[in-house]
């Protein structure tokens, strides 16, 4: 906390929040584009509804406004770490399916994966400013996903991307909250903001 009180820490916090917001926006924009590419490339219907995918964190929060800053950061970090694994898995599956000739889907996926990693990095930095220890990732090896059919893989990928788009929007709002209150405002201040 003491470190968070210094002007440089405040500045850094602000800078991280600001750039995190922009990164989340860009990620939202890129994921939107990626979704279009994905739907087209996988031969799916854009209006198809996908049930909640197992292992994909949900962006919706019941009492979002009441969350503390740290809680928000932890939720975000957990989600993006999960997305990182899922996207890496999707990228691998895409390579297996389409090989190197997977057009623009592979690079776009890689770019989004990179942004997810970058955003996770931002979150870790912010948590460090909050003098919070960054929670360790749950094992270096993700649990082996159940063996799915090809169509199921496609649907799951669609679900991952849609949820990621939702998370990008939520992350922008979370970081705005954090930026408003500055470092150390990890208490539940969301009530007033949520009004």
């Amino acid at each position: 906390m003491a470190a968070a009180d210094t002007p440089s820490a405040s500045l850094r916090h602000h800078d991280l929040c600001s750039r995190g917001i922009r990164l989340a926006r860009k990620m939202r924009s890129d994921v939107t584009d990626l979704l279009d590419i994905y739907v087209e490339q996988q031969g799916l219907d854009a209006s198809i509804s996908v049930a909640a995918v197992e292992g994909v964190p949900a962006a919706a929060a019941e009492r979002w406004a009441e969350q503390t800053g740290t809680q928000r950061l932890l939720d975000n970090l957990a989600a993006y770490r999960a997305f990182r694994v899922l996207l890496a898995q999707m990228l691998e599956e895409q390579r297996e399916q389409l090989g190197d000739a997977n057009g623009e889907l592979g690079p776009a996926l890689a770019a989004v994966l990179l942004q997810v990693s970058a955003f996770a990095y931002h979150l870790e930095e912010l948590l460090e400013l909050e003098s919070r220890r960054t929670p360790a990732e749950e094992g270096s090896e993700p649990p082996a996903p159940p063996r799915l059919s090809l169509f199921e893989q496609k649907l799951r990928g669609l679900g991952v991307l849609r949820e990621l788009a939702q998370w990008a929007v939520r992350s922008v709002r979370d970081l705005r909250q954090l930026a408003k209150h500055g470092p150390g405002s990890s208490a539940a201040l969301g009530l007033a903001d949520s009004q």
Partner: protein
Amino acid sequence: MCSGWNWVVHCLYLFLNICSFEVSGGLVQSCGHIIPESPVLALGSNFTALCILNESCLDFGNIYASQIIWKIKNKVVPKEQYREINRTVSSVTFNDTSSLATPLTCNVLADGQIEQNIYGISVTVGLPPEKPKNLSCIVYQVSKLTYPMKCTWNPGRHTFLDTHFRLKYRWSRESFPDCIPKYVNNSCTISDVQFFVNLEVWVEAANALGKAESDRLVFDPIEIVKPLPPHNLSVNSGILPTVLKLSWENRISAAVMKLKFNIRYRISSDTNWMQVPPEDIASPRTSFSIQGLRPYTEYVFSIRCMKEDGVGFWSDWSEEKVGVTTEDKPSKGPTIWRTIDASPSPAFWTVRLMWKALEPFEANGVILQYEVTVRAKPPLSHPPWRYNVTTTSLTLKLPNGTYEVTLIAHNRVGASPPSFLLIPASNSKAPVKNIRTLPKDGKLWVGWTAPNSVLKYVVEWCLMSNSSNCITEWQIEPGNIQGTYLKGDIKPFKCYLITVYPLYADGQGSGQSVKAYLQQDRPSKGPTVQTKKVGKAEAVLTWNHLTVDEQNGFIRSYTILYKTVDGNETAVSVDPSKTEYTLSSLTSDTLYTVRMMAYTDEGGRSGPDFTFTTQKFGRGEIEAIVVPVCLAFLLIVLLGVLFCFNKRDLIKKHIWPNVPDPSKSNIAQWSPQVPAKHNFSSKDQMYPEGSFTDVSVVEIEADDKKSFSEQDLKPFDLLKKEKSTSEGHSSGIGGSSCMSSPRQSVSDSDEGESTQNTSSTVQYSTVVLNGYRDQTPVQVFSRSESTQPLLDSEERSEDHAGGSDGMTQRQRYFKQNCGQDETKADRPFFERAKQIVPANEEDLAGFAQLQISGQSSQPLGFELEENTQEAALPDVLQASTEGQTVRPETVEGNLPSVDEMPKSYLPQTVRQGGYMPQ
């Protein structure tokens, strides 16, 4: 190049090893090796190598370390650098590796003489890498989603070794694969970067001698983006004629960065760009309305962008787009001026109104027509005239008076404000003063001293040239200035006539003119000078002024340069207004070369050379000399004549000495006849007694004369005299046998037969007269008994004249001398004379004499007489000076005084030896 050399060295090294292996491994065991094996050395460091011999070779070949020779390539290393460590090990040390080369070999002298290679190594010398400097990166947007980042750095000095560079980058918690440059060592491009995350970037350089890293850069790649410029520009005309709306599309997502813009624009015909104020377009947008444009003008637009906060790089300028503003009514009326021609009738003017087409920024559209209104002043005198024209001039014939002209230009949108021009009946107002010009900045400035309350000025100018008429150009200037630049294509070296008119509200001042040059040069040629009049010591030179096209500037002076052939050149400066100059103090009768130079402010040029020669005598000098000389000569002649007249007796005495009287000679009795029978009374008078000294006498039948009537004879009186004289002459000549020509006798006769050879009938005879002066002339012939023919010359002469029958003719002549020929008609004289003409000039003279004697009544004969008289004068002079006896007839014919004849004749006989004074 370095790597190529290393490759060669490496091959050589392998070759040596293989050889060693084959020799030692196959048949002979290797005798040693070098430590270190193939070292890479830093340039400039020291180096020691060891050659270690195998023990087996010591025993087998008696080879020891003391026999080792080190060589670099084929050059033996000095033994000072060797050190024998023990009997099997020898070392060599190099203080500076720059002296090393490959291969470095260890050799021995087997049996003290034969050099054998033991081992060899390759040596690589180079430098460790330097720390890469000046690392910088830039993110280029190449598409909407692709942002490669290119980093460049300075790799440092050349290492002579294979040096690898790697661009390393990472987030604080995540590293990425290195970027390895291809084909270059100073840049590398990362294919994609993520924004909003700080990236740490550095360069690592490594080779066999070491490794070096650049300083590390930490930045968010979004801060170094050079975005793509906006595209799909479009320009739309706004509602106003001064506004255009520019629209575009951005190619970078607003989520990535917000943009600010620069918009530049220019008029199509102009090259200078204008910019929209940056603060007006400092926020994200996709369109902008540009205001303050000119109506009906084509503009070119271009746009660029960068990150809104100014961090990063501007994009390139977009492609250009053209837009045209709409028309507006003309902003001002055309400037108008006039020329007035008062001829042929002063009561009516031919007024040519002319105006300048509006500039595009004034016309604001296409001018469709001009409306001209001419109002007489006072207005009641005549209703106004109105004209609609599409050209820029209008010629009117107006009665002399004051008029006001109004001009309005129309385009599609509307009419211009009116322009006014007052044409007064006379330019009675004050003119400008002190008009002057000055070339400045490649333009011609004209200034003047302004009178009061001038409304505006009209400056007229025209190029003066011999080859074309003066085409007037003009411009209107406001009344508050006192000078302006001429707005036109003013050429250097050309003369311009500039006139300034002041225009007042109620009249006009007369124009004041000045000539000017934008730039002067030397004249293109010099004046052609020539003489108008040349005297003994002076010459009047004239020349024409150079034409205005030749002057190239104001002629400031002329210089006349003149010189003699070998003299110095003299220069005379002449006022440029003159066209004539008199050179004085010239030397008489001397050739002068003169040329003329014309000078402007920039220098002079010479005209062609002209030469003339001064006269030998001045005016009246010849008269002054000739007249006195003539007068003196005449005086001398007169005095001489008077003297001769007074002393004539004395002269006669000296010229005609006493001659013995031939009549007293015995031979005188030989004469068969007495010449006195011939009734030549006149002859007697002409040749008084004693006047003949040496005469050949020809017998003539006196009776023949009787066959002529007295009247017929009268005209022949003179002829008779002449004949007698001629006879005397010829006799004398015959006597002298030298100068006498029988033709002279013949000339007295009528026909060619008279050209008888005297020598054939009268052999060398001498007539001896009794008296001289007081003695009685008794003609006695003294015949010579000599039969010697006449001199050949005389015979030939006779032959030519008389032909082959000369003797016959002669005889006939003697028979007919005073006979039938004289009784015949006059005409035969001419015919005969014509026959004689070919003889020679002397014959002609004789013929003329005959004319005088016998044909005086004939017109033709008279004419000939005159000719003869004309020809006689030189003969007289000749006879008097040379004493020629050739033409006594002529003398006789011209001088009626018979007394004078002997004076000129007789002495000649004396000289020629026919007569010797006794």
